[in-house]
C-alpha cells in the first residue's frame, strides 16, 4: 500500500522563525504576534539577507521577539536595547539592526536612550508594540497608559498624561515616523518595509491589543473588543501634525507622520574617519 506522503504543513514564514523557540509565549489575542507576523512579512517581501540582520529587543512581553527570530539576536537589559544597538551599528554599519520593544522599555526606563538615538539619527529601525501598559509584570500603568485607565498600579484610574509616541519620535529627530494599529497589518508591513530601506533613525509604533491584562481592567476583555476599538477610533491621515495625534478613546490618528532624508550618524562618522585617514596618508607619505 503506497503510503501517501502527507505534505508536512509548513507555514511559509517558518524559515524566519526559530522552530525550537516556537510557538511563542504571548497570550490569546495579543498584538505582539501580529507585529512579529508583519515584521517577518516585510523581511520576506524585501528578501532581507538574514545573515546581515540583527534583532535586538528589550525587556517585556515583546522583548521575547528577538528569541523567536532566526537571525543574530540579543535580549538586552530593560530599556538599553537602543544603546546596545548603537554600539552594534557603529561597530559594523553593514548590519541591518532592528530594535523591537515595548512602550515601557523604549519610553519609560529607555526614554533617555530613545531621544538621544533619534537625535543622533543612528541607523537603527525601531518597532514599538504599544500595548498601553507593562504586560509582562502583570499590567502596571506605563508611559502611554491613557488617562483614567485602570491598571494594577492605578486602581483609581491613571492620572498621568501619556506620551504621544509619534510626536516624541518626530520631535527627537527621527527621519521616518509612522503609527498603525494591529488591524492595519497591510500598511504596517509597508511602513516596516519602507523603514528598512531608509537611512537614519526610523520609528514605527503599532498599537497592540493586550486583552488578557490591559483589556481585562478596561472593559475590553477580548482581543476582538480591542480590535473593534481600534477600528472604530482609527482615522487614517498621512503626514498630519504629530502633535495633534494624541490617542483618545474616540480618536486614534494612524498613518505616516514623518518621512525626511537626513545623513545618518554612522555614515557621517565613517566619512569623517576616511577623511582623517586620507589626511593621515598624506601626512605619512
Amino acid at each position, binding site marked *: 500500500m503506497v503510503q501517501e506522503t502527507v505534505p508536512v504543513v509548513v507555514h511559509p514564514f517558518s524559515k524566519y522563525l526559530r522552530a525550537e523557540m516556537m510557538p511563542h509565549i504571548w497570550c490569546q489575542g495579543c498584538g505582539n504576534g501580529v507585529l512579529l507576523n508583519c515584521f517577518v512579512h516585510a523581511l520576506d517581501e524585501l528578501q532581507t539577507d538574514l545573515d546581515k540582520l540583527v534583532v535586538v529587543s528589550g525587556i517585556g512581553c515583546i522583548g521575547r521577539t528577538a528569541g523567536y527570530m532566526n537571525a543574530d539576536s540579543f535580549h538586552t537589559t530593560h530599556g538599553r536595547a537602543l544603546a546596545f544597538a548603537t554600539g552594534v551599528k557603529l561597530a559594523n554599519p553593514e548590519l541591518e539592526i532592528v530594535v523591537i520593544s515595548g512602550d515601557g522599555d523604549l519610553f519609560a526606563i529607555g526614554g533617555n536612550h530613545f531621544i538621544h538615538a533619534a537625535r543622533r539619527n543612528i541607523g537603527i529601525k525601531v518597532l514599538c508594540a504599544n500595548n498601553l501598559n507593562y504586560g509582562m509584570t502583570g499590567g502596571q500603568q506605563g508611559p502611554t497608559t491613557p488617562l483614567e485607565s485602570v491598571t494594577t498600579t492605578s486602581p483609581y484610574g491613571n492620572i498621568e498624561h501619556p506620551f504621544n509616541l509619534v510626536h516624541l519620535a518626530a520631535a527627537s529627530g527621527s527621519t521616518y515616523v509612522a503609527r498603525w494599529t494591529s*488591524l*492595519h497589518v*497591510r*500598511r504596517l508591513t509597508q511602513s516596516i518595509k519602507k523603514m528598512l530601506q531608509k537611512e537614519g533613525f526610523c520609528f514605527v509604533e503599532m498599537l497592540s491589543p493586550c486583552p488578557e491584562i490591559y483589556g481585562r481592567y478596561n472593559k475590553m476583555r477580548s482581543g476582538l473588543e480591542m480590535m473593534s476599538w481600534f*477600528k472604530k477610533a*482609527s*482615522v*487614517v*491621515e*498621512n503626514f498630519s501634525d504629530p502633535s495633534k495625534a494624541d490617542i483618545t478613546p474616540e480618536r486614534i490618528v*494612524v*498613518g505616516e507622520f514623518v518621512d525626511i532624508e537626513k545623513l545618518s550618524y554612522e555614515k557621517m562618522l565613517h566619512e569623517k574617519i576616511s577623511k582623517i585617514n586620507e589626511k593621515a596618508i598624506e601626512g605619512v607619505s
Partner: protein
Amino acid sequence: MSESKESKPRQDGQIRIGVYVCHCGLNIAGSVDCGEVAKFAATLPNVVLAQDNRYTCSDQGQAGIKKDIQEQKLNRVVVASCSPRLHEPTFRKACEDAGLNKYLFEMANIREHCSWVHLYDKEAATEKAKDLVKMAVAKVALLEPEDEVSVPITRKALVIGGGVAGIQAALDLADTGYKVYLVEKEPSIGGMMARIDKTFPTMDCSICILAPKMSDAGHHPNIELLTNSEVAEVKGYIGNFHVKVLRKPRYVTKDCSACGECVKVCPIVAPNEFDVGLAVRHGVYTPFAQAVPSTYIIDMSLCLNKEGVIVCDKCTKACERQAISFEMKPVTEELEVGTIIVATGADVFDPSVLPNYGYGKIANVITTLEFERLINAGGPSGGHLIRPSDKQIPKRVAFVQCVGSRSARSGRLYCSNVCCMNTIKDSLLIKEHWPDTEIYVFYVDIRAYGKGFEDLYKRARNAGVVFIRGLPAEIVEDKKTHNVWLIGENTLRKEVYRISADMAILSIGLEARKDSETIQRLLTLSRNQDGFFLEAHPKLRPVDAATAGVFFAGCAESPKDIKDSVTQASAAAARAGILMAKGQVTVEAITPTLFPEKCKVCGLCVKVCPYNAISLNKDLKRVEIIEAACGGCGTCAAECNFGALTQKHFTDEQIMAQIDAITENEAEKKIVAFCCNWCSYAGADFAGVSRMQYPPNARIIRTMCSGRVAQKFVERAFARGVASVLVSGCHLGDCHYINANYQTQKRVERLWKKMEQNGLDKQRLQLLWASAAEGEKFASKMREMKTIVENVKPEEIEKGKKVFATALEGD
C-alpha cells in the same frame, strides 16, 4: 459698496410728466378708448403732456418721446402700453438717448393686464386703463434719478456635466482663452454619447468622433477636469460665483498608466453601469477603454477595504507604479467663477414601470440603450445583437416606439425627440450586419424632421423595415421559445395584430435627471412640469437661465440629439463669453437705500437677505450694504419697521402712492393686487397673451419680489377701504431670489391672524403662488376674488378702515 448719501435732494424745480397712451394697433385700442385715457391723463397732477399714438414702441413713437423730452423739458415719462417685461428696456434706452435718466420712466400695462383680458367690456377696460395710468403717474412723480453700479466678472467659467454638451462648451470657452472648470459626476467625461454605438443620421461610430474631443478637453491647458466630483454649494451672483465642488476620492493617483494589471487580480465582480449591467467590471475599474481621465478608480462600495482597514492588497501589489492609495479623502475645492453652464444631460426612462411591456420579466425585452451596448464592438457581446435568453442572433426583431414618451401612463407627456431616428438607425445597423433579419417598428408618429433624417428613414423602408402604426398594447412571452408576442392594433388598417418576434427592443425616451432638483436649488433655477430646466425665454434667450450668469446646454434643458446639444453648447459658451469678454456687468439700480440715522442695528434685514448682501457693523452702529451682491428683491426694505431701509425705484412712498391712486375712488369695488416681476406678474402677462378673460376689479402693482410687499402696504390698502387685496409670487422654492417669498408667507399669515383677531373677513386678503406659465391659475383667482369683492358689505369695509387706521398715520 456705495452707501447712499443723505436722501437725494429732491429735484428742484417743477415735475413735468409726459404720458403716452399706445393703441398697439388694435391690441389696446380694440377694447380701451385710448383717446379718453389720454384726455384723463392730461388732468393728472404734474402732467404737462398727454397723447395717444398707434405704436409708441415704433421708431417714430420713440422719436416723438425723445423730441418731447428735449423740447417740452419733460423730466418724467409714462408710457401706457404693453408689459414692462417686454419693452421697459426699449423705452428706458429712448429716455437715456434724450438725456433723461432712464430711471425717471414708468410703464402702465394696459394691454396684457387690461385690454387683452377685458376684450368684451370696453367701458370697464377703459376705466381700469385710466386707473393704471393714474398709478403710473403717481409713482413716476416720486421717482429719483439713479446710476448703476458695475460688477467685475471673473474671467473663469464652471461647466457642470461632462457629456458632449459640457465638453463642447468647455472647449469653446477654453479656446477663447478663459479658464474652465469641467465638473463631472462620473469617473470619466463622455456622458451618454460615449455609450452609443452609432450616431444618426450619419452612422458615424459615436465614440470615434467623441474620443478626440474628450482627450482635447482632458489635455486643454485652460480646462481643469474635476471628475468623480459634484457641485456642493454655489454662492454669490453673476460674475462672482463662489462654488464649492466636492471631489470624491478615486483611490488611484495620477501616476496610473491605465495598464489594467490591477483589474486582472481584483477578486470583486459587479455589473458595469456603463454597459447597463450587461458586462462585468471589477472593484477597481475604468468605465470604458477611452475614458478621460484614463486614471482607474476603485468602487469603494464594492471593495473589501472598508473603514480604513486594508484587507485585500492584490491591486496595490499588482500596481508597479504604486498608484493605488486608500488614504485619499474627499476634498472640497473652492472655485471663483464668473459664469456657469449647466450641461447635466438627462436620464433614460426605466420601462419596468410599464407592466404591459414586461421589461425586466421577459428576458428578450431589452431597451435601445442595452441594444447600443450589444451592437457595440466594445460591448459585452462583441458587437453581436444577441437575445439575452439564449445568446442567439435573432431572426425577427420588433422595435416599440414612444416608451416613456408622449404617454400619460408613463407620466411623460413630452416627445423625447431622439427615439424615432435612433430606432431607424438601429434598424439599419441590424440590416447592415444581418440583412435577412425581419424588422418591425411599432410607432405612433415617425419624427424624422432633421437634416438628412428623411433619407435615413427612406433607406430603412427600402431595406425592408416594416413600420406598423400602433403601439402594442401588450408584449407576452412564449415560455418555451422565449419569443415575444406583440399584440396591438394597426390603427391605419384598423385591425388587431399578433406578431411574434425573437426579441423586442423598447425605444425608451429621455427624462429629467433624478438629481436635477439639487442643481435647481443650488443655482435658484426653475424647472418646467417635465422637470427640465426653464430657460429665460423660449424664443429670445433659449440658453440663458433666469439667474443671471447661468446658461444651459444639452438635454438638461430638454431632450435633444447630439447635433442640437453641441449647437446649444457653443451658444451657451458664446453667451457666457459675452459677459466674460466685457469683464464687468452693470447692476440694475434697484438696490436698497439706507437712512443710517434710523438704523437700530436690530439685524432683522440681515436675516432675511437671501444673498447675505447686508452685514451688521457694530462699531459704525448701522448695517452695511454690498450693492454688488444684492439681487434687488427688496425683502430687506419690507422687513425694516424703522424705515431705515427702502428699495430704489420701489420706495415705500412710490408704492403707497400707487395704492392711494387705486383707492381714490370706488375702492370698495377694487382689488389691490401685488405681483412679483418674475412669476405672478409674468403669469398675469401669460393670461393676457392667451386672451384669458377675467373680471376687471384688480389693479396690479409690480414689485421685483413678493418679499417687497410690506405689511403696511396691505394695511394701507384696507385702511383706504379697498375690498380685497391679493399678494402673489413664485412657488415656494422657485423664488427667483432663492427664499425671499418665505417672508411673504410669514407676513400674510401675520395679517390673517390680525384680521381674525379683529373680526375681519380673512378671505379679503388672498395669497397666490403662480409661476410664469400659470396664466390660467391667475385668471381663476381673479374670478374667485370677484365673488369675494361682491359679498364684502359696507360695514366690513368700514371695520377694515378702523382696524388698519394706524396705517394712515403720518399722512
